């Protein structure tokens, strides 16, 4: 079938060079799938004419689900009939993106049969992205996915597919079990994930420590980041070992500490943990010698998102420390309160971070019954526009 591939002089340029080529991937798929072949053709035209040829998506889906499928149609269906429909299915990945070859092959088989044979491993939110499907194939795909126990992820104004770093599975710094929490929350909130009922999307991301390997502080409405609150564990012998092997502990470690709380006397490291800002740098540089403390849990931060519409946000501290242990009741209670309030009072297409900034953090805290604490702010207010609580009436003025 190779001779059926369209001529793609522009795209062929993208098969050169050492980085794995997506064009090569599409060509591989195109050997079997006319959808992929037409994708090649349309893409070549885009490359020639410097513009995309996709129509604004319509609503398509799978029975019983309100999301998880992104409708997509070519703007040039006559020229490229194979991609007249080219929908995306978002499939909820297993926590931490771990697989067996067996499970992956089963997905491939389904996708060979019903779709374009193209995927994203993974989408930017974390889903397995099955790229390119006709409307009538959506149900059959889902049918087969059921059999291998893979379910659909989020899209639209719902909970989006939660994701997490590999955490305890592969990393020594995980301050809580990111994969366990991710799986639990995903299961617990299946309805919210599958049936859009929020003002807008909502994302959870879990990182095991402040290195934040899933970028949760930048990309999730609720960022759950592992942290400790006791002393950094120091292995003195290992410190000596690093020094002997030539590490310049003063300049590499001490001088880079934002808390300015590490002392190195040429022999021993001491840390004034009461000034430690939990940045991870010293631990990152000396993983053999330093480890997070033993009293571990997570920090909850709220509100990050991409720029539309109020500008991009980073998440900000909501709860500085919380123990993360099944059944995670405290966390879930808090999430429920936040959602109740936001669903009640949030505007259409208003992310929770935007909602908080609109109503004010204090008012938000008040409603979800969380006490304000100084850890939530970089500094107290600089402007004098204070909404003081109730004033006293003159009548009471009998002093």
């Amino acid at each position, binding site marked *: 079938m190779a001779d059926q591939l369209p001529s793609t002089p522009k795209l062929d340029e993208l098969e050169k*060079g050492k980085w794995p080529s997506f064009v090569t991937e599409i060509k591989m798929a195109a050997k079997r799938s006319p959808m992929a072949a037409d994708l090649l053709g349309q893409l070549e035209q885009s490359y020639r004419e410097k513009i995309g040829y996709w129509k604004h998506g319509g609503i398509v889906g799978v029975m019983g689900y309100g999301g998880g499928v992104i409708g997509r149609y070519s703007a040039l269906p006559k020229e490229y009939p194979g991609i007249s429909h080219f929908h995306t299915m978002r499939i909820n990945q297993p926590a931490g993106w771990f*697989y067996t070859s067996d499970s992956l092959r089963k997905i491939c088989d389904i996708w060979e049969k019903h779709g374009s044979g193209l995927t994203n491993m993974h989408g930017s939110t974390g889903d397995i992205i099955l*790229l390119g499907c006709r409307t009538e194939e959506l149900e059959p795909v889902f049918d087969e996915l059921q059999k291998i126990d893979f379910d659909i992820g989020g899209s639209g104004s719902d909970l989006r597919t939660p994701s997490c770093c590999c955490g305890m599975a592969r990393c020594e710094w995980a301050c809580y079990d990111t994969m366990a929490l991710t799986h639990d929350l995903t299961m617990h909130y299946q309805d919210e994930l599958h049936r859009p009922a929020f003002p807008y999307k909502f994302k959870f991301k879990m990182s095991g420590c402040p290195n934040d390997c899933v970028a949760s502080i930048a990309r999730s409405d609720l960022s759950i980041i592992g942290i400790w609150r006791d002393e950094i564990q120091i292995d003195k012998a290992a410190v000596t070992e690093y020094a002997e092997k030539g590490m310049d502990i003063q300049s590499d470690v001490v001088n880079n500490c934002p808390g300015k709380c590490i002392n190195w006397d040429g022999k021993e490291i001491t840390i004034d943990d009461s000034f430690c800002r939990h940045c991870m740098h010293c631990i990152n540089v000396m993983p053999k010698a330093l480890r997070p403390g033993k009293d571990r849990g997570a920090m909850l931060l709220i509100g990050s998102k991409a720029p539309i519409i109020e500008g991009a946000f980073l998440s900000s501290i909501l709860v500085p420390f919380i123990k993360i242990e099944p059944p995670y009741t405290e966390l879930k209670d808090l999430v429920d309160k936040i959602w109740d309030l936001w669903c009640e009072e949030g505007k259409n297409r208003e992310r929770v971070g935007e909602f908080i900034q609109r109503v004010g953090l204090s008012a938000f805290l008040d409603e979800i019954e969380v006490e304000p604490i100084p850890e939530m702010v970089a500094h107290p207010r600089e402007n004098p526009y204070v909404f003081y609580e109730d004033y006293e009436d003159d009548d009471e003025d009998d002093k």
Partner: protein
Amino acid sequence: MAEAMQERRTDYGPPHYEQFLPPIIKENYGKWKYHELLKPGVLVHVSESGAKLFTVRAASGRLVSIDKIRMFCDLADKYCDGYMRFTSRHNAEFLLSKSENVDPLIADLAKIGHPIGGIGNAITSIVHTQGWVHCHSAATDASGIVKCVMDDLIEYFEETKLPGKLRIALACCLNMCGAVHCSDIAILGVHRRPPVIDHTKVKKMCEIPNVSASCPTAAIRPATVDGLPSVEVIEDRCMFCANCYTVCPAMPLNDPVNDGVSIWVGGKVSNARHEPMFSKLFIPYIPNNPPRWPEVTTAIRQIVEIWAANANKYERLGEWIERIGWPKFFKMTGVEFQSEHIDDFKHAGLTFKRSTHITF
């Protein structure tokens, strides 16, 4: 039908991750003690128990065919007892319990065109989005630019010769699905021409009040055009965000002549040393120049090299620029500072330089 739905299995969620963990991970779950970078692309994690887990990280273009996934599976079977994973930046990771398997695996990966690297003080793969491959909003392609930039920077993926980590991300429009707003270097597709309104379709396809409300700069107002209820755009107020297009298909912004990319620098996500930072505008506009986007790759290489040559150890791009100051960075790169660089959105005043702290 309602009955059928009742019976149908839904909401069973993703498979439990445990079944996908290799035995060595199950045994040492939560017991990892430390790790070392054995060589570029290869990590070893050592457990309290003494067990050792080897990780080989292979480049991925993210857009992979089922053929490629099957090839990965074959390698997983051959060297890793059938287990593998993907990373948060979409690379493929192979988890080995036997050190002697590491080099043969790497050799086999090379054969199928997947270099290893991206660990430690390196550039790893570019988080990116759909572009012309799948999205209606795209102001540029995603995978194509990513391919070109990584081809060019491959040495920094395969070696660990940089001062620190450098993370690149790309989003093909201002929706920023790649969440590029906190990257060391961000490539962002931009429109530069106001929406072209199809007045015959507005009323049919869109809710006019929603459309007006969608505009962050209040550039849209209801209007009757050629007798049809529609909207008009005050062009001076439009900053091309395409939010109107997201809610109203009759207002596309895509345009072959005016679309292109902007380059942003100095963001970071981790809390290491410095608090997380947003990326800042560096090059306001580069026209789309497919298939190889030479202006983009050149600009990015220049940034990487100037940073690599001048930053202190561990200093991320944004940390370094903050230390030397933006005026120096513009001077060193020769990029012209323009009115576009000056913020004029909501919090603009806070980005003005409010001290005498400058260098000459």
